[in-house]
Each structure stands twice: as C-alpha cells, then as structure tokens.
C-alpha cells in the first residue's frame, strides 16, 4: 500500500471481488497481505490479549491509509472489511497449518474474541475447520461472511451487522447456528 498504483489496483479488485468474482481475491491478496499478515502475527504473538490492538482497529487503520491515498471510496469500506476478514481467516489457518507441520504444541492462541469457544483446539482441527468453513460457505455464504468478520477480524456483533447491512439480531442468530453447525462438524462424536 506504499505505492498509489497499488491502491488503484486495490479498488479495482475490491470492486470485482464484491461483484462476486472469486478470482479477484487472489489478485487482491498480495496487495495488502503483508499488512494484514502483520496484524495477524501481532495478534498471535502477543501474550496479553487485552493489551493488544484489536484487529478491527488495525484494519480500520489500514483502510484509512487507503482512504488517505484517495484511491478507495468510502463505499468500499464494507467490502474491504469483508475482504480483510476473509484474508485473516486464511492467514490464521495457514499459521495453524504451519504450527502443526512444525509439530509444535505450544498451543495456538486464537481467541480472537473471548466468547469464541470452539477455537481452543484449532491446531488439530485447522484443516478440518478450513474445509468445514468452505462447506458452510456453500450452504450459507452470508453466514460465513459474518463468522469471518466476527471471529477472524474481531468485529463486535453490531459492527458485523453494520458491515453486512443486516440487523444485529439476524447476525446473532446466524452466528449461533453457524457455530453450532461448525462445532458439530468438527467434533462428530460429540
């Protein structure tokens, strides 16, 4: 995002992605990946979650930088957040994958939100989680979008609702069902 040329590209791919072109995500990702990656890393590294910056705030800041370079319109904001959330999901799951590969059982700290219960064992289930999310997405794309914003980006329920243009209660209901569904998917013998 240091070059304005990139920002122009970001707007372009953001637009295409929000129009439903999944390939645009791959074109978009490298352009802001480093920033979001840093946010995620910081989150994963830090010992005291209540003293770290919320990823939401950092993504806001990233977005402001885009604004500042005035290549992104305010209307792109919710797309950008949705996109960032999707990317965070990727980053975090990739991270979990690597951790697993390195056979380190240091315990991945991924409580993006204290209310998030099912992430405790994400190390073992990260691959399943990824595919479960993909499966869930084919059934309820909006639900996954909400999950990403709420749990991978750490948005509050209200923020998530506002970004998706839904009511908070709709989002709450959708999240609760998605979580129950994912949990039952990840722990089949529960």
């Amino acid at each position, binding site marked *: 995002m240091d070059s304005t040329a990139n920002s122009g590209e970001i707007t372009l791919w953001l637009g295409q992605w929000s129009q439903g072109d999944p390939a645009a995500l791959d074109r978009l990702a490298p352009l802001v990946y480093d920033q979001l990656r840093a946010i995620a890393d910081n989150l994963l590294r830090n010992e005291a979650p*209540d003293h770290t910056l919320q990823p939401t705030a950092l993504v806001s800041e990233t977005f402001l930088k885009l604004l500042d370079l005035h290549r992104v319109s*305010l209307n792109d904001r919710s797309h950008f957040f949705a996109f960032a959330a999707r990317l965070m999901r990727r980053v975090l799951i990739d991270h979990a994958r690597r951790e697993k590969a390195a056979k380190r059982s240091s315990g991945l700290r991924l409580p993006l939100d204290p209310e998030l219960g099912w992430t405790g064992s994400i190390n073992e289930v990260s691959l399943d989680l990824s595919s479960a999310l993909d499966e869930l997405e084919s059934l309820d794309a909006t639900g996954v979008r909400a999950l990403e914003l709420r749990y991978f980006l750490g948005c509050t329920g209200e923020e998530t609702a506002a970004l998706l243009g839904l*009511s908070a209660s709709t989002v709450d209901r959708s999240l609760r069902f998605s979580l129950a569904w994912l*949990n039952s998917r990840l722990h089949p013998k529960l």
Partner: protein
Amino acid sequence: MPAVSQERFQQLAVWFEAALRIPPGPVRDEYVTQVSAGDETVREALLRLLESDTDVQGRASSAPARLPRFGSYQARGLLGVGGMGAVYRATREDGELRHEVAVKVVAGVMWSPVLDERFRRERQILAGLQHPYIARFLDGGITGEGAPYLVMEYVEGERIDAWCDHQRLTIDARLELFLKVAEAVSYAHQKLIVHRDLKPSNILVTCGGEPRLLDFGVARTLQPTAVGGDGQSTLTPGLFATPLYASPELLRGENPGVGCDVYSLGVLLYEMLCGRRPFSGANLPPAAIVEQVLFTDAPPPSAAVPDNPGIDQSVGQGVAEARGVDHARALRRQLQGDLDAITAKALAKSPADRYASVEQFAEDVRRYLAGYPVQASAVGAWQRTRKFVARNKARVAAVAAIVLALIAGLVGTTWQARVAQQERVASDRRFNQARELARYLVFELQTSVGDLPGSTPVRAEMVSRSLEYLDRLSAERSNDENLRVELARGYLQLADVLGNPFWPNIGQPARAKESYRKAIAILAPITAKSPENRDARLSLARGKLFLGQSIGFSGGSAEGRELVRVATEEFGQLAARWPSDFATRSWAAVAYSSYAKSLSIQQGYVATSNADQALAAIHESTGHALAALRLKPGELVTVRQLSSSYKTIGDLTELHDRPGATEYFRKSLAALDQLSPQDRESVVALGARSSALLGLGWNLGNLGDYPASLRSLEEARRIRERMSNQDPKNVQALYFRTIPSRNLAIIHGFAGHTAESLANFLDTAAIYDRLLARSPSNPTFRFGRAEVQSSAANLAMKLGRSVEADRLANAALPVLKQIAGSPDGSDVELAIAARSLLETEVRSLRDPKLALSFALKSSRMNGKEAEIQEILAEAYWFNRDREHAVESIQKALALIEQTPTPARQNFEKTLRRYQTAKLP
C-alpha cells in the same frame, strides 16, 4: 452430520432457532421430534446441532482471560467491547462485602492533567444522579496506563426490546414501561444531564420488570474535550457508532441538547411498538442509514409492521403475537392514528418540531393511555417531515456526513479500541489522522465529488465543515506553520467552490472573496517570516490570482486586474527561485495566461488595445508550461494550459497577421500529442483539441485553404457532437456544437459550396431548436438561430427554393431586429442584424435605414473591428451615401491584416465597387 442441501440447511436453521427458545429438556426434544415428522436424519441432525450449541455456549462462558484491575476493583469478565472502549464486570477486593460492579474504561483517549479537573467535576455530577431507574454511578478514576474509567452499579437484566418480546407485553404494557424510561430521562434532564446515547442495549429490565438506564452522562464524562477545550464537546459518532438511534443533529455533529434524547426515545418507542427501527431497511450500509436519518422520513410504525404476503407475513405475525395481538393487521390498526402521530412528533428531523421535552412526550403517551386526544397530530407531523426532505439534497451529503463523522471521531474522542499505553504517540497519531482526514475531505474527496452533477453545494458544505476541524486543530497548535498553510489552502478551496468564476461554483462571489481574503491574511505573515516556504508563497499567490479574478467578474475590474498582475509577478518570482519545481511552473503558466486574458479580453471578444502586452504575457505562460512539462512530461492540466496559451497567441496574432497565426494554432493542436493515449480521450483534452481545431480551421478558411480548413472544422464538429452525446443533459456541451457547425457553413460558403453551406446552416439551426426546447427565452440561443436562419434563407433563394427562403427569413429577421434593437444589444448582434437587413434575398424584409442605425451604433461601441466597419460601409452604400461608404471601407482596410488574404481582397474589391459602381 451428513451433507445437506441448501434448502435443508435453511430449514434446519429455522427449526434450530425455534427450538432454542424452548429450554433444554423433554419439551424441546418433543418439539424436535414433531418438526422432523418421522425423518430420522433430520431429528438427529437437529438434536446434534442443539447439543453442539450447548457445548459452544458453555465453553464461551468459561473462556479464560487475563483481566485488569481498576483501583480496588478487579475485573472478573468482559461484558462487551465497543468503539469507545470496554466494559468489565468487576468486584471490589478490599475484604469488605463482595460487591459486583460494571467498569467502563475508555481506550486511547488523549488524557492530560488539564482534563483531570473536569473529569472530577463530571464525576460529582454523575454521583448526584440518583433515581431508581438509573444505574448508580459509584466511582471513577484513571488507570495506571492513563485510561479513564467509571464504575457503575452492575445491573442484571435483559435488554428492553428482548424483554418486551419475551414477556409478550401488550402495546399498553409497553407504553407503561416506556413511561418509566422517560421518567428517568426526564429526571436526568432536570439535573442538566443529557444521555445522548439512548438505545435498547443501554436500557435493561430487571427481573422485577423495572427498567435501568445505563451510561447516563458517560458519553460526556468519558470524552475529554481534546480539541476546543470549552467543555462543549459533542459526541459525534465514531467509525462504528450506530447511527440508528442518533438524531439528525447529532449525526451532523451539532451540539446535542434535550431534543437529542427525545429523538432517541422516539426511536425506542417506535421499535417497541412495531418491532422495527425507523431506518433499518434490510440491506442498508451505514452510509445509507445516515442518509435516511438525515433526509428521509420513516414510515409510520403502523405501516412498518410487516404484512406482505409470504415470509413477511409470518414475520408480521410473530411481531403481532409478541404484543399479544392475533394478527399483523390488528396490530397495524392499533398503531394507526395517535401512536403514529406521537412517534412522528418525537422523530421530527428538526428539534424544533419535536416535543419540547421528554416530559411533554411522556404526557402525550399518558393521554393516549387514558383515552384523551393527543397533542401530536398525525397528518401534520409526517407532512412536516416530508417538507423538510424536499428542501434537502441527500445523496452526496451522506458521504460528507460519514467522513465528517470520521474526522469528528478522531478530533473529539477515539474510535479505536486502543489502550492509552503510549498516550503521547497515540495523541500525535490521532492528531495527524484527523488532520489527514480533514485534508482528504478538503482536497481530495471534494474533487472527486465534483464530478457528480449537482454536487457543488454539497462540496461547499463539506469543505466549510472540515475547515472548522482544521481551524480547531490549528488553534490547538498555533505555531505549526504547515498546519496554518493547510488551513489557508482549505480556505482557498472553499472560496473556489463558493464562487471561483472559472470553476463549478455555487454562485456566492461575496463569500468567496471573503474566504480568499482570509487565506491571504493567514499566509501573508507566514511568507513574510519564512520566504523560503514555497507552499505558503504559492498558495498566497494563488489566493491573490483568484481573488483578482473574482473581483474582475463582479465589477471594479481595475482592482481585480491589479491583483492578477501582482499575483502573476509573484508567480514569476517563484518560478525564478524554484525553476525546477513542477507546481510552481505550472501555476506560473496559468497565472500568465490569466493575466494575458485580463489584458486582452474585454466583454467577451479579443481586444486589440493591449495586444502587445497580452502577447508578451502569454509567451511567458507558454515558457513556464513548457518548463513544467519537461519536469512532468505529458501532465494533462499543464498540457491543456499550453495548448490553450498557443491558441490565445493565435487569436491575438490573427488580428494583424493571419498567416503568422496559423503556426500557433498548429502548435496548439500539436501540444496535445504529448498526452498519453488515455488522457487524449479525456474531456479536458477533447475540449482543448476541438478549440484548437476551430481556431485552425477558421484561420485556414480565411486564408483560402478550404480543404484543410474544412477537414479541421469537420473534426471539431465530430468531437463536439460526441462530447455532447456523452453528456446529453449538458446544455453548454450542446451549445458548443453550434460553433463548428456554423463555421463549416461559412467556410463552405467562402468556397462556393452553396448546398453544403446551406445544409450546415440548417444543421446549426436544428441544434438551436434543441437548445430552445430547453430554454425557450434564452436571447443568445434565439439570436443564434435567427442569424443562421437568415444566412440559410439567402442560400435557399440562390438555390431557387424560394418558399423555404421566405419561411426562414420571416422567422429570422424580426428576432434579429428585436434583440439587436433592445438596449442590451451588443456590437456583434447589431452588426449581424444590420448585415441581414441589408443583404436578405427576401427583398420585402430589407430595411437599409434600420440597418444603418444598427451599424452606426455597433461601430460606436467597437471601432476596432474591420468587419463592423465593412458592414457600416455596406449600410451607407445601400442608403446611397457613397462618400461615407468609401470612408468606412477604407477604415476597415486599415484594420484588417495587411497581407493579401481573401478577406482583404474582398474588402479591396468592395472599395473599387463603391468608388466606381452606380448607386443602388
């Protein structure tokens, strides 16, 4: 769980949700068995989902967290995280009674000892707030890390909206509960405390059914007035604050008063009544909500009860049942009338139209409950809202509102959940963010919004509002020179939007001048102190240039021209001091060109009097433009300036040296070749290209090179036709099409192509027809059409189409006579009317006497135009005054270029005719 289809998944979600409302146990299981209707896979899937849910919820509540301490309170859990900070559940740890409290802590506030005193005062006020329906304030302080916190009574309860639904409260019971809430708010108002953030999540209902209002005065107390410092800080929604409950004035960032709480209570009542918020259309992004709150009227609550066939109906049914009513329709009927009226009055866009106090609002609700007529009248209130809407332009304003809210969020409080660990760093960062955002709004966003039709007033509003922020920031750091320069540049931008005659503006020249003067006043001392501050000096010169141009356009042109001259001189000095700075060079090019125009253009035509001075200035302009383009090759605006300056040289040179002028018209055209292919297609470049082609075509035509002339004019015609078609609503673009069309007709006439000439005149008349369809009384359009019709009539006669000729001439001449004969008739109009009256082939319409009086008046107004002298000569001739005819054509010959161009040869032929021919 086996793979399921999307439909099955959605069905499961619905059943799942319904089952969750039943406590776990045999009843719930029974429900599951029922809905799965014998399908074992469904039953199993549902049961597993519910089990999984219990598991997830259980783990969520036991998630460990490292929790902070606040004085003698130890946090036990996080209740929520919001835009402003976090709320913790905490207990007192000093060995006494275990006492549960809620602690609200603000993250990332710019805190300073100065604010300490105010914070203490505010806490005292809060401590005085003692009401059974208001959560008690207990304590407050500042954490070791500098974050202020407030300790409040911990309230166990349910959100008011959820509670009403779960208890299936009837409308009357809801109103009773609402009255208790209103009582609490009213009590606080008596203590001069406004809540400003009333929403269902701030109003809990205890198990005893009593409401408890949270966060009274918190917004104000926890928000130090980082900027302004007058204690009048406003709570403006930050990035994430929900605009759903905020009143229009709060969203606009105005100082909120009691009316703000009246409005929020109105939203609350609305929602309690019909289950929807006034502005919650399904898929609205926040920007759209802001737009609606500001400018749209919500449907009355009765109409908001969903009752369309289909899913909507079942939702409506649910809403009705939660209110103890059988059908959505019955609920609608119950809300219609008084309750619609009461909410409408509470939700009026303007605080003046709302209930004057919460008490009055409550009184009306009580009257309704008692069966008395209410004060609010349904029709009146919703109508007022509509009127308000009609007065406002909404669209772009919403964008502005959001960005302003962003800035305000940074200036006033914080939108980041940032712990104030690195307080100073954070303060600087936020300061810079606010500044950059204001700058973005002033300099960038308004330029992009500028492309939207009808957006100019909004831009003016945006700029002036963000200037307020810059002003405040600048006051805070008055010795920050760069910030002062930015502020001045903001004033320049504002002035441009208000009334720069060369830019889209909202037509307020007086305010524009005031704003230019303000910018100059800020910049003058800075440039005196720091002569090396290039930005400041450039801005100062720009301020003078545009102030001069503004004055030049509203009378008193001597002062205006002088300012333009001084500004141009300053730009010259700047360019000498910083010869390789692109902006300096580019501005110098603009300034010299403006100066040249101020010298040469008087009343719209090229004047000959100052031509030499003007030529010198315009050559300077091209010099600077060329230098700028060496620094930034192909830069669009500068290329356009260069092209335009060459064309001006051509125009000025043509007056005395038509062949010499050709070179400059060609240069004007060639200059555009250095643009990138993409820029070449821009509106700016196409406009410049068509102008250059017009100049060149006219010049070549008058030199007798008809094929080349016609080629240029044809291309100009095509470009302008395309530009106009692309922007069909743009009247000016349509008008610009008449010029190449008319010139084509004239040059075809010179070349002896009578039929083509006629066709082009008729084309031109048709364009005027379209213009006149839009503005029927516009004198410029009427005169323009009459002129081409008159010429067309003569050609039609020549081609033997006498009926057509008659019709055209009879349409044209009365209009020409009327407009030229009016007191406002210009020299050119008088001359054109005179010529038509002399030369019309429809002989019955000829009027040499009137023509002579027109021609005389025209030549008195402008004695330097060869063509006017020629028309005067012709007028004398037809009035049988050989002596004056000869004298006038000789004068024309002295004024026209001395090289033997066809025009000059024509004049010479005319002279010989006057000298030798028989009088007509």
